[in-house]
């Protein structure tokens, strides 16, 4: 077993354990901290897959901005485990069973798929910022400009909703 597989297994175990911590912990602040751990593990996967630009963007945008925003909102609302709303038990079991059934179906459907393998030893420069920037500004200019409009409208919307 190579070093890449060991790193993959460790990162996957951290990611899945942290994701389970998100949905199982009673305290919302612990959920956000578990989520940050999960995102850092996913960022490790990105760098294992030669996606250096996405690694940096993922750390900055998700871990640095989005989760801190979540944490900020949670601290502002002063939520804790005592006032955490609880679902009835059978609804929780129903949710867990339906999620597990989906997991089972997807794994069974994709177990036999024949796809090319990933060569973890070969490094490619496809995830570098120059390569991605060239593709972004040649093939994907229109979506890029549209996303700037989306950002502007989201910003205006958040300010308008928050001001009331």
């Amino acid at each position, binding site marked *: 077993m190579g070093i890449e*597989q060991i790193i*993959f297994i460790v990162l*996957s175990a951290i*990611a*899945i354990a942290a*994701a389970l911590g*998100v*949905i199982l912990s009673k305290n*919302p602040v612990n*959920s*956000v901290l578990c*989520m940050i751990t*999960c*995102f850092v593990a996913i960022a490790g*996967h*990105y760098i294992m*897959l030669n*996606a250096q630009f*996405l690694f940096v963007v*993922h750390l900055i945008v*998700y871990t640095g901005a989005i989760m801190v*925003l*979540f944490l900020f*909102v*949670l601290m502002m*609302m002063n939520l804790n485990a005592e006032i955490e*709303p*609880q679902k009835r038990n059978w*609804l929780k079991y*129903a*949710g*867990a069973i339906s*999620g*597990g059934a989906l*997991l089972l179906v*997807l*794994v069974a459907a*994709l*177990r036999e*798929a024949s*796809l*090319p*393998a*990933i*060569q973890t030893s070969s490094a*490619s420069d*496809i*995830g570098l910022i120059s390569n*991605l920037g060239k*593709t*972004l500004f040649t093939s*994907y200019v229109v979506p890029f400009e549209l*996303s700037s409009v*989306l*950002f502007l409208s*989201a*910003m205006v919307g*958040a300010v308008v*909703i*928050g001001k009331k």
Partner: protein
Amino acid sequence: MPVQYYIFLSIALFCIGIMGVLMRRNAIIIFMCIELMLNAVNLLLVAFSKMWVDAGRIDAASAQLFVFFVMVVAAAEVSVGLAIIVMMYRNTHSVDINILSRLKN
């Protein structure tokens, strides 16, 4: 390494996200589980991008740009969604989504 490993990891993260949406009543946790599902899809797109690069395709950068756009949309969605949750908390002093069922009348 077979790409199936990444497929199974993404499926596991996605299903954990779905379980979280179905099991919890805190609106913020549900929102975070949606982020988790988006990240599972992102991870799978990056894995497929690497797979096609290794198989000799030169246009595999598109998958990484899709991930970039998903991140853009997720950031916009989070800002508006958290503003809505904050407004809901201000009006009802709770983040319980069952309270939102009052909206139907």
